[in-house]
């Protein structure tokens, strides 16, 4: 907002600071550049596209990823295709859509969803998921500056629980690049968002208990994803485990497993495995069983290593 006076922040309830306090202070500092919209996701995204076509940098908030679906047409049929269909005459590239996503402990069907795989299937969009405050700042700034429309999913569980030192000045983290959080030799664990921390816990657990050495990758950008980092890691370890909260079937893990199987087939020591949410709506009282928690990840690591 400081460096770009065409940057606008808008959506439901952002003016008073937002239901997760993500926009606190923006109204006071930037006035009319931070504003509430009516309660209408297709309007929020469509309006944002219009702003982008006029050279503005709209940063649109969808209050929960669970409610992004009314905007699906605008995202898929309009924002994603704006540049391609016009041969670059017009673009909606200035648009960034932010949405809190993921399990929060008590969210049930409609405050817990992971929706990233609906959008990783859409040519023309970029899909980004931070795993910590410092990652969030750098990745979000990259999305805002990116010449293509970006969707930025913020793991809501981490709003309160994740605390770290964040550099004060402006900095960006490149899109399309994974980050290695832990170096290892026996198996590659890939995740994004809050799940990265589950993987890190599992890695430590099996290191302590079994002497298994895990390499943990935070994918960070899902579309386009860092094929070089992933294949380099799997070529080193020979084993792959992908884990996400989203339901197993047709989740983004399927894409990673398919590509890695093709590229690293002869190197693999075991079938790639996915540890994911069940193929059910996100349940309330069953959440601990539904989620791919550290116990299930540890079980899968051991089974894969002993294959």
């Amino acid at each position, binding site marked *: 907002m400081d460096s770009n006076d065409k940057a606008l922040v808008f959506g439901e309830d952002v*003016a*008073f*600071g937002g239901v997760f306090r993500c926009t606190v202070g923006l*109204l*006071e500092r930037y*006035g*009319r550049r931070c*504003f*509430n*919209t*009516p309660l*209408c996701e*297709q*309007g929020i*995204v*469509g*309006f*944002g*596209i*219009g*702003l*982008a*076509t*006029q*050279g*503005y940098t*709209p940063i649109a908030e969808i209050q929960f990823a669970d409610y992004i679906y*009314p905007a699906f*047409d*605008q995202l898929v*049929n*309009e924002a994603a*295709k*704006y*540049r*391609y*269909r*016009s*041969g*670059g*005459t*017009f*673009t909606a*590239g200035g648009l960034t859509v932010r949405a809190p996503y993921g399990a929060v402990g008590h969210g049930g069907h409609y405050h817990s969803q992971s929706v990233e795989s609906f959008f990783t299937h859409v*040519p*023309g969009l*970029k899909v980004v998921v931070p795993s910590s405050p410092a990652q969030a700042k750098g990745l979000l700034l990259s999305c805002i500056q990116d*010449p*293509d429309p970006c969707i930025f999913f913020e793991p809501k569980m981490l709003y309160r629980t994740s605390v770290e030192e964040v550099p004060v000045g402006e900095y960006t983290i490149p899109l*399309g690049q994974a980050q290695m959080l832990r170096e290892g030799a026996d198996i590659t664990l890939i995740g994004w968002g809050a799940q990265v921390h589950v993987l890190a816990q599992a890695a430590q657990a099996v290191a302590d208990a079994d002497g298994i050495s895990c390499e943990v990758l935070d994918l960070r950008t899902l579309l*386009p994803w860092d*094929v*070089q980092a992933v294949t380099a890691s799997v070529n080193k370890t020979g084993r792959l485990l992908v884990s996400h909260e989203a339901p197993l079937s047709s989740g983004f893990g399927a894409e990673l497993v398919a590509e890695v199987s093709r590229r690293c087939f002869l190197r693999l020591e075991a079938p790639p495995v996915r540890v994911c949410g069940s193929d059910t709506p996100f349940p309330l009282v069953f959440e601990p069983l539904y989620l791919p928690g550290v116990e299930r990840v540890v079980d899968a690591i051991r089974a894969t290593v002993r294959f």
Partner: protein
Amino acid sequence: MLSRIVCNSSLGPSSLAQLACSSLHLLRHVQRQLSTASTASAAAAAAPAESTSQDAADTLEFPGGRVPFTHNMEFLGGPLTPSSPRIPCYRTLDGTGKHIPDAVVPHDLQQQDAVALYTAMAKLQVMDTICYDAQRQGRFSFFMTCAGEEATVVGSAAGLDPRDMVFSQYREHGVLLWRGFSFDDFANQLYGNSLEPGQGRQMPIHYGSKELNYQTVSSPLATQLPHAAGAAYAMKLDGADTVAAAYFGEGASSEGDFHAALNFAATLGAPCLFICRNNGYAISTPANEQYAGDGIACRGTAYGMPAIRVDGGDARAVYCATRAAREIALRDGCPVLIEAMSYRSGHHSTSDDSSRYRTREEMVAWRARDPVVRFRHWLVANAWWDEEREKQLRHATRQQVIEALEKASKVAKPPVSALFSDVYADMPWHLQEQLQETLQVARRHPHLCPPDMPVQ
């Protein structure tokens, strides 16, 4: 009469509402920090301080404003009856093209402008006819005409400023023609050749032009309406003296994006014109199966914006209404809705045969109300046009369109790489890989490539 029809918003100038709104934002923000007061007291705190006890007894103070009480129970609205009036339809020329004596014409057309308008409408008709036939002959895959709606589209185009950004649906190529899109430009897009900006990626009639401020057409209906609201809002933030103009049919106005766009534009105060071509049909669905209320115009007032219904077959009325709407939008920083009543004389597209759902009698009756002929009668009555010029114009245009189609058919198709470029600003790794694979496929199986498509 015209001003009464147009300025029926009871909320006062939008700019004042906007100021009050942002003050209210700040006030509410402070309130939340200071207290956890109940809704009632918060609403009371937000109210102007000068209400008398009389006012307080007769009105409800509410976060959305003040509403008067009544002790009568009365339901408003319902099915339209002869006694419940529809919004009247503004016209300045009668069905035969004769000037209506008392008609309010705030921007009358002088000879030069009238001839320019007529010429564009006639050219549009000729181009539509030839291109429709060309599609039937298999020269390209698809086409849509705007027969019956020439006055709506060209009249409104003339009422806009060339710098106004147009977000069209798919039947408004008359706007492009008015603004200077050449027959070559049209033909290149229809053939999907390497000269058209869209690089052959979309079906025919999905034109676009940066120079002419016409956003590239997309097939999904009404998606352009919220775009126009956002673009207009950007113009307002820029302090520009331009508006955004969104075109759509009465069918598209049933989509959720219509509601989203009008509500956003009105609430946020965006200088956007929403121009509805109510042409009676959405493919085979007649308007009385599309809505039960009084068409589209009445929805504008419901969202808090001025609205007008106009005779879409009267080019001069459409022109006046559009110019006036534009002035209101800029002056008040608000959206305006125009519902132009017309008739889709042609089929929905080359993929449609409308004789399957409407009678010959109905079509013949409407063809007799050809808006181009009607406007021509007015020109002829003013001695601004004659039979000879008519023949020359139609003949010359025919030649030009045929030539343009011929020329475009010979231009090469875009290269194979155009399948993969422009998905993103820079081509990511997976598209680079897929491009290389596709080039190999094209070399291995040349029949998959159109004959004049460079394999590169």
